[in-house]
Every structure is written in structure tokens, then in C-alpha cells.
């Protein structure tokens, strides 16, 4: 079992954080995980992406040309990475930002209105949790409980008030693809 995921968007959209959450959760479930960011000089408007591997075997290459899943948070990301997705792979699109559609017929596409849902839930900052929910639900690679536990740990102590919000966002994201 091995998932190779690319998460890509504008710098500041939170793609790197989604990747970290996936890696953290994978680690919590005892998987071998890696997270590798693209990095470069400060160029706003550019695309920032990261590569995440979740695997039951030791991870060889932390970077790869052909992801099993793509999470595209903006249009340039979809344009850049769609072609490389492994046949039969899944593409998650932040449909609030991206109006383009996935072109390849051999891919499963989920259009997740992350920001909209986040605002519905009450805080635009939780849109990443929505996408995470969608990913977890669609791939089944991670247990929802793991993510929820992770959320609880992330917001331990004084920030505990954010837990329900995040869990709600996560669940709404899961619901999107079910």
C-alpha cells in the first residue's frame, strides 16, 4: 500500500499544511511517511506544492513524477500536475477557486467547495480541514478517528475551543465525497 500525493496551490493557501496533516496522521497510524516541499525564492503568485508519501514499506523516493492523488488548490496547479497523475488516480479540486475541470477521463475528480463549506462552518481558516476530510473519505487510507484525534492534539489547551469547528469542517469535507 502506497499513496503518493501532490498538494499544490498558491503560497499561503495552506497546501503545505494539508500535506503535513496527512503525514502526521499517517505516522500516527504507523505508516512510513515523508513530506517534501517545493521551495524557491520568494515569488508571490507562484505555486507552492508538496509531495507526501504514505506507505506500509520504507519510503524510497520522497518525490515522484506520478502521484496517486492530486490536491489542486488553484488553476495553475491543476494545469501543471493533472497530466502526471497515475492512471486511475484521484484529483481533488478546490472548486471555490478553480473553475476548470479535470480533463482526463481515467481520473476520478472531486470538486470540493472548501472555502464555502469553511465559511458555512464558521471560519474560513478551516478550509484545509474540509479538503482533508474529502481526501480521507475518498481514499480510505486513513481512519477518520486518527484525524479527529490529531485535531484534538493540535488544539490542546487554551486553543481547545477550535476543536469542534475543525472536526465539523473535516466531517463536512468527508461528506462531500460520500
Amino acid at each position, binding site marked *: 500500500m502506497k499513496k503518493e500525493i501532490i498538494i499544490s496551490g498558491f503560497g499561503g493557501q495552506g497546501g503545505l499544511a494539508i500535506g503535513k496533516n496527512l503525514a502526521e496522521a499517517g505516522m500516527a497510524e504507523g505508516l512510513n511517511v515523508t513530506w517534501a516541499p517545493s521551495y524557491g525564492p*520568494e515569488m508571490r503568485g507562484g505555486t507552492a506544492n508538496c509531495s507526501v508519501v504514505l506507505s506500509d514499506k520504507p519510503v524510497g523516493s520522497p518525490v515522484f513524477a506520478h502521484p496517486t492523488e492530486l490536491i489542486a488548490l488553484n488553476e495553475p496547479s491543476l494545469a501543471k500536475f493533472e497530466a502526471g497523475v497515475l492512471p486511475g488516480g484521484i484529483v481533488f479540486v478546490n472548486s471555490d477557486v478553480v473553475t476548470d475541470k479535470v480533463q482526463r477521463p481515467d481520473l476520478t475528480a472531486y470538486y470540493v467547495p472548501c472555502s464555502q463549506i469553511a465559511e458555512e462552518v464558521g471560519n474560513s481558516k478551516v478550509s484545509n480541514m474540509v479538503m482533508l476530510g474529502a481526501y480521507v473519505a475518498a481514499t480510505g487510507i486513513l481512519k477518520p478517528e486518527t484525524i479527529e484525534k490529531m485535531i484534538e492534539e493540535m488544539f490542546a489547551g487554551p486553543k481547545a475551543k477550535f476543536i469542534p469547528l475543525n472536526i465539523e469542517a473535516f466531517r463536512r469535507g468527508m461528506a462531500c465525497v460520500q
Partner: protein
Amino acid sequence: MAIVYQKSAGLTDAELHYCPGCHHGIIHKLVAESLVELGLLDDAIGVCPVGCSVFAYNYFTCDMQEAAHGRAPAVATGIKRTHPNQAVFTYQGDGDLASIGAAEIVHAAMRGEKFTTIFVNNAIYGMTGGQMAPTTLIGQRATTCQSGRTVEQAGMPIRMAEMLSTLDGCVYAERVCVTDIANINKAKRAIKKAFEKQMNREGFTFIEVLSTCPTNWGMTPLKANQWLKENMAAYYPLGVIKDSSVEVK
């Protein structure tokens, strides 16, 4: 219909890679316009630093050389000494010029090398993601002084224009900024004057431009503009620091 203003012929058509509102772009065009207006473009050789303006060679239409980090004054010395009648300029950031390249700028100034330095002081290492520069203000946060620069740890910020002005070879040093039209006009006058003095073989000419780094300052461009005026200009006084013709206190 006459064109009142358009992108300078001294700039290529390439899109600038700078962050929104970053002053590098404004400073670039003042240099480009000055070269065009003085008829120096076809003659000029520019030297870019390592810093956010590392790609300046993509933007200026004159010949350009990319220097190693901090070494632009040495590179420019190599060029100008062998091409004494051509216009040579360096474009350097504060990490590049005031930190790693401190020896090279001091010595170019001491020798009175006849090129013009455009020193873009944004009080931070922009390109590498916001580390402390020698010009970072006391209390200002950076990724290598996350609770703000302290005198105890890093000393008081360095005023390069003032320090270089102690050297006889430096004949002209002015500090400007580009936050508004009045200052932009002053900055351009200063840059043109520096090039004129260079072509008159007077000596080393130095224009320090206070500049914003909205990204690493963590501010909007407008907020950054404001912060520059209130904080940077207070510590780094604007105006002529040295002019060998008119001695200014």
C-alpha cells in the same frame, strides 16, 4: 494623443518576479529611466547581486553581469577599470552589500571606483526568507531574531551611507526612498546625479534606497510603505549624506 508615461526602454518586457508592492520594481525603473535619459543605456553594464534582485539581468535592457553574493563591487571594479568610459552600476541588497560584501563595498569606496552603487536597504534578507540583515531595526522581527533584533545580540543597525561617507573616494552618497511621488522624484534625481558624477570621473557614488519587503515584514504593501516612513526613515535619515562638491554636515 501623446504618451506621458510608459514602461522604460531600459526595461525588458519580462514580468517582474517581485512580490506585490515590492519597491525593487520601482527602483529598477528609476535606474532604467536614468540610463535612458542620460543616453547611457547602450553603453552601460550593470551588476546584479544575489538577493531578490538576482534576476535583474532579465529586466534591464543593458548588458548585465550576475555577481557572487556580496561581490558586485569587485565585479564592477573589474569592469569599470577595463572600460573606464562606460557607465557601470551595481544593484545590491542590504545583506549583499552591508553583510557579506562589506569589505568589497568599503574598498571600492576607498579606491574611489568610478561606478554607481544602488543600495536597496529593506532591512531584511528578502530572498532567503526574512532573516536578520545588518540593517534590521532594533526590535524588528526576522526569522533569525524572532523576538526582534536586540543590541546585545546583534548591535545597532549599520548606516552604510554614513560609514562610506568617511572615505574620501566616496564623492556622493544620498539616501532616498520611493514611497510616494515626491520621494520617487527625489530618488530619480539622486540616481541621475550619481551617474553624472560617475561619467565626470569624480569618484564612487552611492545611492541608498530605503525599500519595503511586504512579504517578509508580514505586511500589506501599503502598511509596509507606512512602516518604512515611520520607522526606517527615522533611523536612516533621508537626504544627501555626502556630496564632495557641496559639503553637507
